[in-house]
């Protein structure tokens, strides 16, 4: 029977490398997914993910046992990914202040939910859209993509997002709104459902 994360963390803190390796193997895919969602580039996401685990190891003593290891590693991953994004793409920092009005026409309300059905695990369309998610995310400005990924993958609250990104709560809500609106339009366009103008840029 697999040991719980906290037990592995405790063993790793005691100097057990195999326990830490097990933690890495257990969380690597999701950590990579978080990194990929933010930095977009696969190789960069790979490096960010490895950095995150190395940093986690360095700071194991700061891990509070009442917290979730998954939440902790995801937040460290996101922090590194955001830093990388800022360093890698300084010329795109203007994105931070530039939150344009939606560049796509809004999909009709409810169309995405209806198309994807009530059983999220079973629909073919859901799998198809999941397969094109990276493509859609890649069309968002960095600031919109980051806030959306942190919200959906990391589960950060408005307050946590504001603190993490160093922006007011209202800006968090605004960025989320625009990110979601554009994603809905893009995904509806991929699905061939009511999304006039999807892919058009204003």
């Amino acid at each position, binding site marked *: 029977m697999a040991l719980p994360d906290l037990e592995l963390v405790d063993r790793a803190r005691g100097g057990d490398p195999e326990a830490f390796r097990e933690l890495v193997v257990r969380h690597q895919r999701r950590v990579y997914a978080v990194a990929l969602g933010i930095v977009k580039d696969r190789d960069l996401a790979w490096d960010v993910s490895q950095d995150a685990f190395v940093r986690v190891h360095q700071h194991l003593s700061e891990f509070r046992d009442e917290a979730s290891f998954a939440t902790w590693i995801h937040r460290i991953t996101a922090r590194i990914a955001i830093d990388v994004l800022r360093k890698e793409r300084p010329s795109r920092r203007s994105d931070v202040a530039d939150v344009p009005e939606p560049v796509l026409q809004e999909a009709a309300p409810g169309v995405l939910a*209806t198309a994807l059905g009530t059983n999220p695990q079973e629909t073919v369309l859901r799998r198809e859209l999941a397969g094109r998610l990276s493509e859609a995310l890649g069309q968002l400005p960095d600031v919109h993509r980051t806030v959306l990924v942190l919200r959906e993958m990391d589960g950060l609250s408005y307050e946590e997002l504001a603190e993490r990104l160093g922006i007011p709560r209202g800006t968090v809500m605004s960025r989320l709104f625009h990110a979601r609106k554009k994603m809905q339009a893009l995904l509806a366009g991929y699905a061939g459902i009511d999304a006039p103008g999807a892919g058009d840029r204003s």
Partner: protein
Amino acid sequence: VRCAGATPLLGSRPGELDPTEEAALSAHLSTCESCRARQADLAALSQVVEDGLLVEASRRDFSGFADGVMARIPTSAWHGDAAPGPLGRLRDFVRRHRILATASALAPALAALALYLYIGRTTGTGPSGFGVEVTSEDLAAVVLETSDGPVILVGEASDGT
């Protein structure tokens, strides 16, 4: 509140909105079918974002990932340098203070031995197998070789000895 004011509030979680926003959104949703549909869209989108990124991650071969991480952690980090948890900290404390613990356990016997040696030295009849050094009329330093290394005992002589 109208749709334009309500839509940015959609997708919030319980407790995230202030009471005014919460009340406004709730009132709006009770009468606006479109915004209820938008809310359903957000839930669907949320799931697709998560699924999509995990699908993308699953396309990657992770066979060398853990090895890469482990290779970047210095070997020394696995020899007591890694920061311990509660149990680990207790183990580390005992490990770090083994000498102190041993000395504490042996303190009464060692004190008696030191006194015995000191008395023996001052009377000229004590054993000579231990390194005993009288540093002053009142102090005697006894160096004992133990399994934890040398232990120095400093005993203060009582008057009249």
